[in-house]
């Protein structure tokens, strides 16, 4: 029993020690893991921001951005997070309802976005289009629409993400809903034999796809840029769907309970700086919300350009989200 108490004591001591060792304020940012990992945008942004403002930045990568939101909800007012980064406009309303987030008072009306977007709590920092990514060497005739996708041979498998935990997963759900309306449930039934597996977050899906477990993965039109720039591989493409592509605007907000509100606000402001906008395309593989002098890397011109951006209003999504998810759950039942 004494060993047990010792362990508890040790854990307590360690956590206290880790608090007091540094005098600089630490800005803690919860996000999805692909953002926080060493080869993601996190470390570059941390460096740039720390240089500009005297502080430490700590990125905490969760398996998905909605997962990060849930963690903040679980921790309530005791959360260590100062900022939540990585939700999109579809789920931001749900986050707002928790009452845990603070207003930002920034002017976001001049941003370079394909659609107008203003919100008192959540500020946008990049955007892209949801799309299925495939390997050109393996898939010779990629589907060009949802109909074509469902009509692929039986052994053609895709990996998607759970709309309850992942923002691209939710985007796909809304995309299908927008295209099929009340027939969305029936479409999911038709598509379900092609779904190899549904993962909690984007990176798990993408990992399975790269391991060769599936033919296509739900990702973004901008994902192939990664393979071209980082790996010199041009065989990864995103399938262009005739129906248009669902857009995803990623957003961030600061927490009411944050102990470093000034710093947090500075960070939100930093999201609209040129420094940040230059990091985003080749680190988070998305379009920045601010035009830079450098402009986008050339590779981005080779990427799939959707015929139109489909994007539902956040408030409408929030009204029907549970319903749409339930419809999806029911149509997957066997």
């Amino acid at each position: 029993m004494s060993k047990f108490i010792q362990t508890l004591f040790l854990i307590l001591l360690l956590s206290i020690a880790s608090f007091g060792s540094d005098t600089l304020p630490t800005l803690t940012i919860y996000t999805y893991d692909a953002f926080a990992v060493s080869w993601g945008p996190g470390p570059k942004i941390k460096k740039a921001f720390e240089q500009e403002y005297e502080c430490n930045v700590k990125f905490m990568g969760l398996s998905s951005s909605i997962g990060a939101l849930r963690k903040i909800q679980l921790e309530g007012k005791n959360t260590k997070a100062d900022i939540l980064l990585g939700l999109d406009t579809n789920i931001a309303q749900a986050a707002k309802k928790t009452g845990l987030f603070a207003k930002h008072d920034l002017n976001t009306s001049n941003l370079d976005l394909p659609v107008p977007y203003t919100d008192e709590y959540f500020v946008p920092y990049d955007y892209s289009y949801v799309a299925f990514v495939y390997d050109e060497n393996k898939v010779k005739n990629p589907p060009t629409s949802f109909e074509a996708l469902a009509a692929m041979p039986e052994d053609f498998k895709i990996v998607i993400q759970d709309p309850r935990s992942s923002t691209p997963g939710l985007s796909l759900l809304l995309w299908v809903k927008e295209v099929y309306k009340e027939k969305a449930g029936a479409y999911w039934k038709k598509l379900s034999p092609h779904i190899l597996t549904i993962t909690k977050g984007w990176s798990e899906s993408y990992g399975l796809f790269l391991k060769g477990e599936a033919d296509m993965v739900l990702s973004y039109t901008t994902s192939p840029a990664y393979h071209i720039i980082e790996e010199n591989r041009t065989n990864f493409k995103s399938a262009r769907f005739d129906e248009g592509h669902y857009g995803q605007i990623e957003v961030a907000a600061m927490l009411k309970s944050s102990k470093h509100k000034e710093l947090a606000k500075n960070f939100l402001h930093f999201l609209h700086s040129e420094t940040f906008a230059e990091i985003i395309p080749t680190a988070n593989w998305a379009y920045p919300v601010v035009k830079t002098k450098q402009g986008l890397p050339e590779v981005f011109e080779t990427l799939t350009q959707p015929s139109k951006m489909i994007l539902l209003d956040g408030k409408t999504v929030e009204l029907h989200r549970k319903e749409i998810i339930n419809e999806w759950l029911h149509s997957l039942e066997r």
Partner: protein
Amino acid sequence: MASLIGKIKMLQEVKRLQYSLLPGGFVSLLLLGFAFVLFFILFFSQEDASVAQLDSRVFSLLKFTLYQAFLSTLLSVLVGLVLAWSLAHQSNFKGRSLLVALFSSSLVLPTLIVVFGLISVLGRNGWVNQLNLYLFDHSFGSYLYGLTGILVAHVYLNASFASRSLLHVFESIPKEKYKLAKSLNFTTFQRFIYVEWPALRTTLLSIASTIFLLCFTSFAIVLVLGGSPAYNTLEVAIYEAVKLEFDIGMALKLALIQLAVTTLLVLFSANFRTSVGNVRTSTLSIPWSESKHVKRFQVTMIGLFSLFFILPLLAIIVDGIGAKFTRILTAPLFIKSFFTSMGLATVSSILTVLFALFLSDTKRNFTLKHRLPNNIFSKILNTIISFSGNLYLAVPSLIMGLGFFLLSQTYEAPMAVWSTIALLTANVLMSLPFALAILAPVMQKTGQRYDKLVFSLNLSPWQRWVYCEYPYLKSSIGYVLALSFCFSLGDLGIIALFGSDDFLTLPWYLYQLMGSYRTSDAAGVALILLAITLCVFILLPRLFRSSIAKDN
């Protein structure tokens, strides 16, 4: 007058046994109290009494959970039976004892490791498919996600476990029976029906009910291989309700349904009496030489299952060896999770042994005739003690986790403290049924053997322990320590609710790595976890080996 004397005698008896009654009684009360608090929290945290509002999703979850548990049990028991039968009749098979020892390690293999290995062998890009592509230019495609994957993994873990216990039954059938059957000129089938089946029946039933419960509450396998909400078990659905949707109301609803079903199952199923002891296989061969065809069939069965069992482990080793160990071993998260895991496993295995010793010490007061009178009162107390030790079967991990989680919402304390308490509790409860099954019979025996001597010499409890109990229990204690250490080390249950960058265990770290396409690091961590598990499972019992306890 006589009854008064009887009562006085009994009081004296109780006083003499107080050192044996009190600690176990206290542990039992502690466990039952915990179960009560848990149930109380779960039941009364419901904001609205909407338990009646069960939609079709809940119903289909329950249906699938029962369905896959039934199929898994059926397949595991069938495969286990054929395997045990083959092994029993092929006692001269080379490497047999090594195989049997290996199969018994399935009990402690971290489920996540098994999943990892299975994907490497049977996945779309796995060995089997690649070989097939190379030889016949044909791939079986992806079949491992969904029901097939869940069944394959369950059979992997449970058939080997079942075969181990069944083999023991085969070997304890008196050889005379075989001789008699032989002289009656029985066929192999008749021999099975008349000689072997009657001996197997009870063990088979208790194994089946245990496997059913384990599969009913299966978590890690379903989480990784289930792949779609269509293949969720209740356990995973509870996890998703909390972690994905923050829908505590839904989680509670599911938890109460799960609790109702498991409690019913535990009440109706045979007692948890599966033999899990580290008994060595007998070298006495069955006096019956098999016909050529039967022999061929048996050897094929052993060969196939061995392949099925060993290949995924081999895959972990092959995949793992290529990993960059300097990078893995220096990663702060690895170091953190390593020490957390080792610390938790050490503390919980020691606690498990202590609890199991106290409980079985108390238990024997009610089962040994010369101690307390064998009346209905004793029987009830004995059942209560047994039930408190087997609590885990009725209250699965995730429900426990949910309870702790709700507590942590109400009472403020650092999350690390809550997580530590939750994990320790879960680990101890998880190992207790096995620990009791191993330690209680030995303690019963030493009681029978030494009670009179101890009482007449008036030895103190401590002296009794040093001179009588420990020498006999030593090797069993070693085995229980190893078992519960490995259980704790490999568990991916409650940590899934509590895990974070600040508090993580090796399985959780591995799950994170698998989830973030760092396949090579994941392979390395999987290998490390496998190596630690096997080392502890093989080496720890050796440290406790004693010459006296050999026959126990």
